[in-house]
C-alpha cells in the first residue's frame, strides 16, 4: 500500500506544473489568425514553415496552425463553428468545399481579389473553376489532383514479357495486360494481381467511360447515374475486372475493406497496376527495389476518357472577425513559395501552372512519366455540387454497388434498384 501511495504522490507532483497553467504557451500579442488543416507530416511541415516566416515578417499578427487528422477534420471544425470558435482560414478539399460553400459558410473572395489585383490566372483554370460558382470565387487552390493515374510495376511487366503501357492504351490493352500480369503459385493461390485501386474508386471508371452522376455539375437538378448508359458500362467494367477477367483483387481479398493497404500491396509487388493520384509518389519513392512509373488510365476505342478529381485550397470563414488579415495570409500561403515547397516533396501537383511546368515539379525523379499529369488536367471531372452528394454516393449508391462487386447482382440490376431511390432523393442545392 505504501508503494501505491508513493506512486500517487509522485504522479500528482509531476502533473502540477501543467495544471497550474505553466504550459509552454507562446503569449499571443495583437491579432490572432487561426488556420485549420489536416495533412501528412510533410505537408504540415511546409505550412508551419510558411507560417513561421509569415509571423516573423508580420509583427502584430500571430498565426496559429491547428491540425486535426483528416477523418476528424470536419467533425472538429463543425463543433468549433457551432460553438462560435471557428478558425479564420480553413483548408478545404475539392469535395468538402461544396458542403461549406452551399451552406454559406465561406466568404466570397472576389472583393478581395479585385481590391488587390490578385492574379488568379496563374492557377489552373480547372482548379479555379471548381471553387467558382456564378462568377464568385470562394477558395484559392493549393494543388490540383486528377485521379487518373495507373501506377505500374516495371518488373512485373518485364516478367510477363509485355511492353510497358503508353498513355494512349485502351480498355482492351489494359485488360489483356492485367490478365497476363496475374501470377499464381503451384497450389493455385494468386501471388500477384493484375490491378487494384487505392480505395473502391468506382467514380474513376464512371468518368472514364464518359458516364455521369447528375445532369449538371454546378447546378444539378436530377441524378443521371442509373440512367446514363456510359455509367452502366463503367460500373460493369469494374465488376468484370474482378468477376469475369479475374485480374482485379475482389473485395474479399482486400487487406482492408475501404482499400487501405492496397498501396502497400503495390509496394511489395503483390499487385502490378494501381489506380490512384500523384500523392502516392513519396511513398513509392521510398520503397526499396520497386521500379515503377505512371501512365494515364486507359481510354475507350472512341477516345472517350475522364478522370475523377481531388485537390485542395484555402478559404476564409464568414464568421471570421479578421477577414482582411486572413485574406493576406491566404494570399501568402497559396503563393509560389509554398507551391515550390509542395512540388519538391513530390506529394502533389501545385495549382500554380508555372510551378507545375518547372523543373521543381518535373524533377526527373520517379515517376519518369510525371509530365502526364499536365495532360491529365484536361480530362478532369468534378462531382456534382449539392448538399446530399456524399450521402447519395456513400449511403445509396455505394451499398447497392457492393452487391455488384461481389457478383450477386449485375450492374444493370443494381441500376434498376437504384433509380427509384435516386428519384426519391434528388440533388439538394438549396
Amino acid at each position, binding site marked *: 500500500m505504501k508503494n501505491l501511495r508513493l506512486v500517487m504522490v509522485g504522479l500528482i507532483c509531476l502533473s502540477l506544473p501543467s495544471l497550474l497553467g505553466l504550459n509552454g504557451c507562446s503569449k499571443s500579442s495583437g491579432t490572432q489568425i487561426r488556420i485549420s488543416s489536416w495533412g*501528412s507530416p510533410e505537408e504540415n511541415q511546409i505550412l508551419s514553415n510558411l507560417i513561421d516566416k509569415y509571423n516573423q515578417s508580420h509583427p502584430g499578427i500571430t498565426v496559429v496552425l491547428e491540425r486535426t487528422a483528416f477523418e476528424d477534420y470536419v467533425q472538429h471544425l463543425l463543433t468549433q463553428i457551432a460553438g462560435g470558435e471557428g478558425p479564420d482560414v480553413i483548408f478545404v478539399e475539392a469535395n468538402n468545399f461544396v458542403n461549406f460553400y452551399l451552406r454559406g459558410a465561406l466568404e466570397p473572395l472576389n472583393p478581395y481579389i479585385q481590391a488587390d489585383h490578385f492574379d488568379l490566372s496563374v492557377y489552373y483554370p480547372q482548379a479555379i473553376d471548381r471553387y467558382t460558382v456564378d462568377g464568385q470565387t470562394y477558395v484559392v487552390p493549393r494543388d490540383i489532383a486528377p485521379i487518373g493515374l495507373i501506377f505500374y510495376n516495371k518488373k512485373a511487366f518485364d516478367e510477363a514479357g509485355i511492353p510497358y503501357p503508353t498513355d494512349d492504351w485502351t480498355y482492351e490493352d489494359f485488360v489483356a495486360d492485367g490478365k497476363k500480369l496475374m501470377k499464381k503459385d503451384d497450389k493455385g493461390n494468386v501471388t500477384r494481381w493484375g490491378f487494384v485501386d487505392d480505395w473502391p474508386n468506382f467514380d474513376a471508371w464512371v468518368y472514364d467511360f464518359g458516364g455521369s452522376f447528375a445532369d449538371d455539375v454546378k447546378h444539378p437538378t436530377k441524378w443521371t447515374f442509373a440512367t446514363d448508359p456510359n455509367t452502366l458500362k463503367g460500373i460493369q467494367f469494374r465488376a468484370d475486372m474482378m468477376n469475369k477477367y479475374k485480374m482485379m483483387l475482389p473485395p474479399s481479398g482486400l487487406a482492408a475493406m475501404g482499400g487501405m493497404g492496397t498501396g502497400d500491396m503495390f509496394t511489395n509487388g503483390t499487385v502490378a497496376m494501381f489506380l490512384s493520384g500523384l500523392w502516392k509518389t513519396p*511513398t513509392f519513392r521510398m520503397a526499396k527495389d520497386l521500379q515503377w512509373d505512371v501512365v494515364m488510365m486507359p481510354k475507350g476505342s472512341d477516345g472517350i476518357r475522364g478522370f475523377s478529381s481531388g485537390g485542395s485550397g484555402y478559404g476564409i470563414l464568414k464568421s471570421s472577425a479578421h477577414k482582411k488579415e486572413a485574406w493576406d495570409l491566404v494570399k501568402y500561403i497559396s503563393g509560389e513559395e509554398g507551391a515550390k515547397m509542395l512540388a519538391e516533396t513530390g506529394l502533389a501537383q501545385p495549382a500554380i501552372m508555372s510551378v507545375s511546368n518547372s523543373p521543381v515539379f518535373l524533377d526527373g525523379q520517379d515517376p519518369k512519366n510525371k509530365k502526364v499529369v499536365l495532360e491529365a488536367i484536361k480530362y478532369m471531372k468534378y462531382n456534382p455540387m449539392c448538399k446530399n452528394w456524399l450521402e447519395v454516393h456513400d449511403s445509396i449508391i455505394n451499398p447497392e454497388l457492393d452487391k455488384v462487386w461481389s457478383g450477386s447482382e449485375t450492374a444493370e440490376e443494381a441500376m434498376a434498384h437504384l433509380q427509384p431511390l435516386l428519384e426519391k432523393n434528388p440533388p439538394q442545392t438549396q
Partner: protein
Amino acid sequence: MTDPTVPSPAASPTGFWASKRRADKITRAIVTILLVLGSVVMMLPIVWMLSTSFKTRTDVFSIPPVWIPSPLHWENYPMAWNVSGMYSTEDWSFLGIPFHGVTFTTYTLNTLTIAVLSCLGTTLSSSLVAFAFARLRFPGRGPLFILCLATMMVPTQVTMIPTFILFKSIGWYDTFYPLIVPAFLGGGAYNIFLMRQFFMSIPYEMDEAAKIDGCSNFGVYWRILLPLCKPALTTVAVFSFVYNWTDYLNPLIYLDTNSKKTLALGLKNFVSLYGQDYHLLMAASLLVSIPIAVLFLIGQRYFIQGIATTGLK
C-alpha cells in the same frame, strides 16, 4: 482454520476450484495450460504491434507476414517520440527541458495531469454518490438512479455540440477543466453504478453495527464500506485512469493549443490523408501503453485484497 481444505484467507483468495489437495496438481496444470493458450490468443494484436514497430515503412506489409523483422529498427521509437515536434515551435526551455517544440514528452505530462486528477476525482466522488444510492433512504431515490443510468444511453455524438457550447460559454475551452471537473462531480453513471453494486453486496449489518457505535453516515462510508470495497475502488481507479489516458474524442474537442494536447491526439499525428506510417504508429502506441501495463501490474494485486484481508468473517 484447521480444515486443510479451506485455504487461509490471508494467503489465498481462491474459492472455487481450489479445495482438494489431490486435485490441486491436475487443476493447476489445466489452469496453466488455459492461461498460456489464452495469453497467446489475447496477445496476438500486441505482438503484431511490437513486430510492426521494429520494421521499416515498406516492410510492414510484406507477404507472408514477418513476425520477427531483421534487423530490428530500434530507431523507430525515438523517431516516433519526437516526430510530433514538427508541428509547433513552442518553447519549453523555461521548465529546464532541453528541447524545443512539442513532443510526446509534453503530451505525456498533459495526459498524466488529466488522468491522475480524473482518477482521483472519480474514485472519491463515484463512491460517495454510490453510497447514497446504495445505503441511504431518501425520496426519489429510484427515479433519480434511473435518470443517472439514462445519461449513459444518449449517444455522445448528439450531445457533443451542446456540451461544447456549454463549456465554451463558461470559458473552459482550451483548458483541462472539461476533462477533469466532471470526474469530481460523480465520475459518470458507469462508475456510480459499479460502486453501488459492490456496496449492495456488503451485508447491511456492518452499517448497523457501526451506527450503534456512534458512526455518522459519512463514517460508515469512510471507515466501513470503503475499506471493504478496495477491489471495487481499484477497478474504478484503473478504468478511470485508462479511460482518460486513451480518450480521444474529448481532448480533440476541448483542447486546441498544441502544447495542451494529449497522447491520444498525438498518436493521430501519424494518421493522415496520404497513408499511415504504421511502424511509427505502432511504436508510439506501444510507448503510450507501457504506463498502463505497469500501473496495472502494480494495481492488480489490490484486486485480491478484499474481504479476505479485512477479516470479515
